Structures are given as structure tokens and as C-alpha cells.
């Protein structure tokens, strides 16, 4: 599957500590958005506020209302006072009560915000879903005019929306871009449950330019879909690239020795020698069929350069 890839510049992804921090809500219409627009996509007003700030604002408003209630009760006490002494007592005790309430509120302000965020999410689920739907539609529409921006929008939405359809759209866009090592690329976040040609194509590209992103879940995906991948024109090349990238960690070789064995023969020299040395270092691997296969390949191809070899029964010798 060789397509013409276009050179693009992608903005780096700005992760937040918590996913909800990406959400913003319009103070005018209550619409939610996860995109970085200045104005609300629904009403067009520049009144977007982070959900945490919105919660803080609501908590402060609620506390203000409570203080107002305390003031009104104090005023009622003053109003029903029959003597000056009663008025003085009412004012004094009322002021004391209000100050006490204010102090309690101030010390509890921070702890109230998470509850308020929860309340906002629970009471405005419909609006939240509608807002995210609008965001997804905007990203899909953007594909025809600005593909990199469409991808960036989808990447932002995918922070909270876990959908294979959305991931597949991102993969389709990524497969049309000329990917570079300096790009802020994701892989595990885009992993979809079923076999998809775009997914495999992207894994192959990542294995080539950013092998550090090839982790256990990715190796598991390619091993699960190996027969389907091998049918593809670049299938073997991609699987070899994944096997080569997986050699960064000895653990992956220990976990997937059969996979390594199947592609050891196709590995480039530098990757193959890395595998050879990993097996030499890992005692539990020396008696496996992977070690035998690697020893055979090593003997046939690289013996003149090596000072160590593995015997056919898996024993290492100098």
C-alpha cells in the first residue's frame, strides 16, 4: 500500500494532567468544546471557560448565596428585635455567625471544586455529548480543506472520545502525511481493536522512524493479526521492522521469542547483531529454538566478524 505522502507540519500535542482539563464550557449557551477555539462553536461568543474555572465560579456563587442567607436571617433577627439591646445582640451574633461561615467556606473552597466538576458533568451530559459531536463534525469537515488541522482536531477530541472510527480517521490522515522523527506522534493511543490496513501501515512507519513507540501492546497487535498482515504487499517488511524495533528491550524478546524467530532472518545486520547479543546475555533464551535459529543465521552470514557463537544445542561458546 504505497501512497503519495504529503509533507506537513503538525503542532505538538499539549497533554494535560487530567483529561477533563481539556474541556471548556460556554458561559452564554452552555455548549462544551474540547477544541482550542477562541469563541464558542455554537453561539460564536468569546465566553469559553475551563471546566475547573466554571466549577470554582459556581462554588463561589453557592457560598455567596449561603452568606446572603445568613445576612437575611440576621436582618430578620434585627427586624424582630424589640429593644436596642436585642438589636445589638442580633447584630453581634449575626456578624459572628457570618464571619464563622466565611472562615469555614474559605478553608473548604478547594475541596468543593471536584464535587462541583462532578455535578456539572452529571447534570450536563447531554450538552457535553452534543458539544463533542459538534467538535467531531467540525474535524471531519476540516479534512477537505486542511488535513493537518483536521488531524490535530481529532487528536484533541480523542483525548476523551475513545472510538475506533475516530482513530481510523486519524490513521487515514497520518498515512497520507510524510512522517518525520521530530513530529509529536502517538501510537498506542491510536491502536484499534480490529485489523485495519491503515493501522498496520502506520505501525510500519513508526517502527521505521520512532521505534521507541513500539511497545508491548503494539507487538501483541501485530502477532494477533500476523496472517492478515503477511497478505499485504509490505506485510513482511512491516513485521520485520516491528521485530527490529522490539529489540530495544530484552523483555520483548523474552515475551515473544517465536515472533522474533520468524523475522530474525530478515533483520538488517545491526538489528540482527543486537538480537544475537541479547540472546547471549539472556540465559533463559539460550536453549530456545530462537537461539538455534539465530546461531544458524549468524554462522551462515556473520561468522568471520564474530568472536562468539552459539552452538546448535544452544550452548554459548567463545
Amino acid at each position, binding site marked *: 500500500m504505497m501512497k503519495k505522502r504529503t509533507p506537513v507540519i503538525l503542532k505538538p500535542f499539549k497533554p494535560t494532567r487530567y*483529561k477533563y482539563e481539556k474541556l471548556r464550557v460556554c458561559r452564554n449557551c452552555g455548549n462544551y468544546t474540547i477544541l482550542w477555539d477562541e469563541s464558542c462553536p455554537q453561539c460564536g461568543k468569546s465566553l469559553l471557560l475551563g471546566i475547573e474555572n466554571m466549577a470554582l465560579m459556581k462554588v463561589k456563587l453557592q457560598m455567596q448565596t*449561603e452568606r446572603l442567607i445568613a445576612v437575611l436571617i440576621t436582618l430578620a433577627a434585627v427586624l424582630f428585635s424589640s429593644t436596642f439591646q436585642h438589636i445589638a445582640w442580633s447584630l453581634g451574633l449575626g456578624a459572628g455567625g457570618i464571619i464563622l461561615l466565611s472562615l469555614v*467556606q474559605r478553608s*473548604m473552597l478547594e475541596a468543593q471544586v471536584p464535587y462541583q466538576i462532578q455535578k456539572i*458533568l452529571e447534570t450536563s451530559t447531554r450538552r457535553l455529548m452534543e458539544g463533542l459531536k459538534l467538535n467531531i463534525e467540525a474535524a471531519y469537515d476540516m479534512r477537505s480543506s486542511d488535513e493537518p488541522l483536521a488531524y490535530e482536531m481529532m487528536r484533541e477530541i480523542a483525548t476523551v472520545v*475513545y472510538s475506533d472510527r475516530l482513530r481510523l480517521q486519524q490513521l487515514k490522515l497520518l498515512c497520507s502525511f510524510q512522517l518525520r522523527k521530530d513530529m509529536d506522534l502517538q501510537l498506542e493511543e491510536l491502536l*484499534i481493536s480490529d485489523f485495519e490496513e491503515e493501522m498496520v501501515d502506520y505501525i510500519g512507519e513508526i517502527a521505521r522512524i520512532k521505534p521507541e513507540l513500539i511497545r508491548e501492546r503494539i507487538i501483541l497487535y501485530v502477532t494477533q493479526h500476523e496472517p492478515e498482515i503477511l497478505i499485504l504487499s509490505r506485510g513482511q517488511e512491516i513485521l520485520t521492522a516491528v521485530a527490529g524495533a522490539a529489540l530495544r528491550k530484552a523483555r520483548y524478546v523474552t515475551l515473544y521469542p517465536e515472533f522474533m524467530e520468524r523475522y530474525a532472518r530478515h533483520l538488517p545486520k545491526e538489528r540482527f547483531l543486537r538480537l544475537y547479543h541479547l540472546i547471549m546475555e539472556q540465559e533463559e533464551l539460550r536453549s530456545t529454538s530462537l537461539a538455534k535459529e539465530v546461531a544458524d543465521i549468524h554462522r551462515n552470514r556473520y561468522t568471520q566478524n564474530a568472536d562468539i557463537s552459539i552452538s546448535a544445542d544452544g550452548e554459548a561458546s567463545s
Partner: protein
Amino acid sequence: MITYGCIGILFLFVLVRSLIYRSKRKHRLSLEEIDRELLAIVNEGRESS
């Protein structure tokens, strides 16, 4: 008499609010829980990984 009643209500109100605040602080909701809840709301009925 009503004055005393009002002042009593005021202090009862302050006490009740303080207890509610205190109980919420004691069983403080973590921000990770909010994240989980958000993801559950958004991805309900949707395939996820």
C-alpha cells in the same frame, strides 16, 4: 422571642453547612475519579480500549 429564634436558626444553618463541607472534605473526591467518570460518560456504549 423571634429574634432568639432567628439567631438560633442562623447558628444552626452555619453548623449544618460546616458539617456538610467537612464531610465532603473527609471523603474528598480525587481528580482521577472525575477523569474516570468523564470517560465513562463520554464513552458509554462506545467501543473503547
